[in-house]
């Protein structure tokens, strides 16, 4: 049976087709913020990334399909000595605003568990705020900070053993649960052909790639452009909202960025902007790549970064079948009057012709024909953070 795991601000929900109707049911964590839920295809175990508020971020697991959950025995923790560059506000009477900013280093503590991914070799990857990538090579019995990435020159160098380079090119995201504007790793995609090749995306820095299982990392931002930087083609400073790749042809990579939609057909070596603002394809958060045809992808566009709503009150999904050369607006079955939903970066997924997405308004929609027509699963879920088939 096909299942969709829905992570919301108030719990985990399981969506399945019963009696011909897609139905959502609470599957745990009632009242708790759940950022992401996914099934490890290797072990079958369900992993939920929780944000408890008062009690911090926790990893929760289920081995019985979501009937019972428990905190994973090993939690994600930054090691002693992990520091990062940040900025602090201070009173500055010489400033017109009365405040100034100064660079500081902070001790790293876990603020948010944001995404989880599973490699074909059994490696579990977890992306966090403040910008730490963790991995487990023992099925989740322990998690280790990836130090080559944490100490990457773009981040400011090695702060475990000194003061690094003194500056960072990684900036923040407001998605932090602690209120701090710290970098966040929201995308981890593992190459199905070679689990040692992993792409990650950071808000705000850009995309990095490892080809040796995380021992070395290099930027993958060539061809990207920005409109929020004096140098639009700078190597760093990009704000990828999400990246996804085609499972059977992983050289085809998609990126919904703050500044448009980008596509690469050569493994993120070179990106090409494929936004078509005339059909509403430009700003948004999620993108989902087809698993078989790398030229096919779905988006849920939004209206510009200064509004972040559905465009003109009509909700639609956009699909390309030709690598972004052309896009179709898919509206049948979706609300076209007074619909102002916004869809977060992890809240769109596809599998075998099924497409599902959920909004922060608690609306969940599913299509069984690649987005041509849509059915409403629920109008009454809590704000939706993530949807994943599994």
């Amino acid at each position, binding site marked *: 049976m096909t299942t969709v795991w829905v992570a919301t601000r108030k719990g985990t929900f399981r969506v399945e087709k019963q009696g011909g109707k897609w139905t959502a049911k609470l599957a745990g964590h009632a009242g708790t913020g759940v950022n992401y839920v996914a099934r490890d295809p290797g072990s079958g175990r369900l992993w939920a990334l929780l944000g*408890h*508020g*008062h*009690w*911090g971020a*926790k990893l929760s697991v289920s081995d019985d399909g979501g009937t019972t959950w428990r*905190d994973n*025995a090993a*939690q994600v*923790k*930054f090691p*002693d000595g992990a520091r990062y560059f940040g900025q602090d506000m201070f009173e500055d009477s010489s400033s017109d605003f009365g405040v100034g900013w100064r660079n500081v280093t902070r*001790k790293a*503590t*876990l603020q948010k568990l944001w995404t989880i991914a599973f490699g074909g070799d059994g490696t579990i990857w977890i992306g966090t705020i403040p910008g730490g990538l963790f991995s487990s090579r023992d099925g989740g019995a322990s998690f280790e900070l990836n130090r080559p990435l944490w100490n990457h020159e773009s981040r400011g160098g090695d702060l475990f053993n000194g003061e690094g380079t003194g500056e960072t090119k990684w900036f923040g995201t407001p998605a932090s649960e*602690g209120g701090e504007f710290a970098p966040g790793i929201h995308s981890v995609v593992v190459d199905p052909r070679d689990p040692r090749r992993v792409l990650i995306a950071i808000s705000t820095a850009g995309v990095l790639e490892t080809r040796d299982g995380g021992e070395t990392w290099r930027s993958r931002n060539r061809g990207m452009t920005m409109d929020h930087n004096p140098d639009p083609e700078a190597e760093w400073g990009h704000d990828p909202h999400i990246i996804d790749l085609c499972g059977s042809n992983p050289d085809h990579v998609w990126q919904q960025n703050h500044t448009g939609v980008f596509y690469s057909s050569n493994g993120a070596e070179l990106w090409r902007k494929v936004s078509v603002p005339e059909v509403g394809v430009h700003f948004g958060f999620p993108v989902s790549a087809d698993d078989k045809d790398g030229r096919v992808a779905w988006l849920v566009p939004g209206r510009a970064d200064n509004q972040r709503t559905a465009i003109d009150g009509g909700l639609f999904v956009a699909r390309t079948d030709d690598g972004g050369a052309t896009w179709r607006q898919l509206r049948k079955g979706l609300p076209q009057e007074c619909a102002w939903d916004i869809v977060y970066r992890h809240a769109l997924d596809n599998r075998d012709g099924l497409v599902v997405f959920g909004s922060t308004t608690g609306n969940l929609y599913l299509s069984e024909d690649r987005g041509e027509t849509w059915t409403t699963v629920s109008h009454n879920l809590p704000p939706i953070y993530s949807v994943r088939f599994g």
Partner: protein
Amino acid sequence: MIHVHLTRHLFAFFPQLEGRALEVDATSVAGAVAELEKLAPGIGFYICDERGRLRPHVNVFIGNAMVKDRRTLSDAIAPGDKLSILQALSGG
């Protein structure tokens, strides 16, 4: 022994602690949290972050006085003290 009172919110995650008199042998708040960790593995990471600092929206009282050292939990406690671990009310 130190008498420990926990907010009922924590019983949702550590039901084994609910409905029992919690007493630990410790001379500092940090020591009391370490003893609680033995009774309920994982609870220390709910109360403190990975650097051992009290989480921002968690309050600990000795008797009716809020602890002073939130960074290392070094406040001294003595036999007979009541230690309360509560969630801060942050509005809403």
